[in-house]
């Protein structure tokens, strides 16, 4: 059977369900680990059921997870929705079942919230702002008119779109020129293919802006194969462990850290607070830090 200890049935102790996106993604695993560590430190205060879906595209699985948590009679659900619209109805159902719902990481779509007459407190970073900061750091190394390419995340992922918009904001501000903007589906391999092809097609490109670090790894590999490493700059997003060496070496110029480990914890704390006070807390923006070769920490 599963090795994880089942949440013990201590009456009165609230049960908080954390529903995340793709656990294949390091970001969410860090989030989960942060949450688990927090629960261990506060074992007397609540029980945690952490779940995620296999990959970000499988929205229906996430809806089903929320349904399961309703059936499990969780007291609070902390959710990082894989789709900012499709998850609203089921979260509303949870609300109607008397469950506290806290939205983290990826904000529900405002129009849909309005249409469905529901509201959930949001705790999370502003991806667009973070991406703009990364883009700005890059722009400092380039001059107006330089060509750049953007490697986007999955096309309908909300944070992917936000990051693209943030990159575009920075590019516009610095007067750079986007010669191509294509999706790498968050994957190293796909990004590698796209960047390799683009380097041939647009030999004068000066920088590659990747919507996450896994794709930045693929971009770096493509540049290395084309012998352009060093001439073409790469930026990423998420600050995963694997890019930290590259940041130090200067092969990746900058990335953004959204503090995944603390993100879920904020959400959980919010939920516990709401359970106590029975009042919905206000939205809260969590910090996004720019990380460059100089500021990168020695974290393993």
């Amino acid at each position: 059977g599963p090795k994880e200890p089942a949440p013990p049935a201590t009456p009165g102790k609230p049960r908080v369900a954390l529903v995340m996106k793709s656990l294949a993604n390091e970001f969410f695993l860090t989030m989960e680990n942060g949450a688990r560590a927090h629960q261990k430190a506060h074992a007397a205060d609540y029980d945690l059921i952490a779940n995620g879906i296999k990959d970000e595209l499988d929205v229906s699985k996430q809806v089903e997870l929320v349904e399961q948590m309703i059936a499990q009679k969780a007291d609070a659900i902390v959710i990082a929705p894989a789709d900012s619209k499709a998850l609203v109805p089921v979260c509303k159902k949870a609300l109607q079942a008397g469950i506290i719902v806290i939205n983290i990481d990826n904000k529900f779509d405002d129009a849909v919230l309005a249409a469905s007459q529901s509201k959930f407190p949001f705790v999370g970073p502003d991806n667009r702002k973070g991406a703009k900061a990364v883009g700005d750091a890059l722009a400092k190394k380039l001059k107006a008119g330089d060509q750049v390419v953007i490697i986007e995340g999955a096309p309908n992922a909300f944070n992917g779109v936000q990051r693209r918009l943030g990159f575009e904001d920075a590019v516009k501000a610095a007067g750079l020129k986007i010669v191509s903007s294509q999706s790498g589906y968050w994957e190293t391999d796909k990004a590698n293919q796209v960047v390799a092809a683009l380097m041939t097609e647009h030999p004068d490109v000066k920088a590659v802006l990747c919507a996450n670090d896994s794709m930045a790894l693929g971009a770096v590999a493509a540049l290395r194969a084309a012998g352009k490493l060093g001439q073409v700059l790469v930026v990423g997003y998420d600050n995963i462990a694997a890019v930290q060496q590259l940041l130090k070496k200067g092969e990746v110029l900058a990335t953004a850290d959204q503090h995944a480990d603390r993100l879920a914890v904020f959400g959980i704390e919010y939920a516990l607070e709401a359970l106590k006070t029975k009042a919905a807390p206000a939205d809260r923006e969590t910090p996004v830090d720019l990380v460059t070769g100089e500021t990168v920490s020695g974290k393993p």
Partner: protein
Amino acid sequence: MNSFSTSDFRRLVTDYLGMAVALAALITVFSLSTEHFFSATTFRTIANQIPSVLLISVGMTYVLVIAEIDLSVGSVLGLCSAVLGVALTKWGWPLWLALPAALGAGLASGAFNGLVSLRWRLPSFIVTLGMLEMARGGAHAVTKSQTQYIGAAIEGIAGASVFGLSLPFLLAIVIVVVAQLVLSRTVFGRYMVAVGTNEEAVRLSGIDPRPIKLAVFLITGFLVALAAIIDTSRFQSANPNAGTGFELQAIAAAVIGGTSLMGGRGSIVSTFFGVLIIAVLNSGLAAVGARDETKRLITGAVIVVAVIVDHYRHRLAKGKGT
């Protein structure tokens, strides 16, 4: 049309014993390891989650019985869902027009799969693989890659319930029963089995296998569209990525249920058990809150073990012969 004989009953037991045992074992394990798993709510939740996968698995079983395969089911679900969503929101169509449009998209995809593979005698694997890409591309093109929120307009379909069981679930059960009867008791069903076993021999018997195959692809397209409608109603929104990976799930459910990939053998009721096993497994693992890699390891192992259990059931049924 005859009365139900004891040999029928014995067959029922031996046919589904392995599956039932595997299912019962899973439920027991999860009930023992979590507090709230063994409850009416859990089962009602599962019942309301499976209809779309179930319908797709029924279609897949049919396709596998005729020795073909349909990899496009997940993408076509996305496409039908996209058409439905966009028709309701952007084009402002009424429901009675949008629903046939979605069904039409499903039927058209099925027709493409069937006609192209029959016309040029291509393996359906490759035709439907092409369709997988094209339908997903279509879904993204129609929705401009944006999830369409529909809201209450479509809630009624999945929302209606009888004794806590949703309309889609009841519909899916009816379809399972009908599909099983069609497979085992009608001329069309026997022709499907025959085509899947030995297409050349069927042709030599003076029966044209092509209309049968086309019909099966159309039925599958229709069932996928139904599943798309159900899912869209359940989520009150149309997601162009809906259904990603459903093809493998549906094939797994059918194969766990003993359907052969080589054609000529399959049972809808067994597929139903296959779907249930996967659903209970997912639900139970979520209730336990296992880590993702543990989930994957267990899911993989359960799939293999379920088929091994079924292997021994076969031996049991056959007696010592062979």
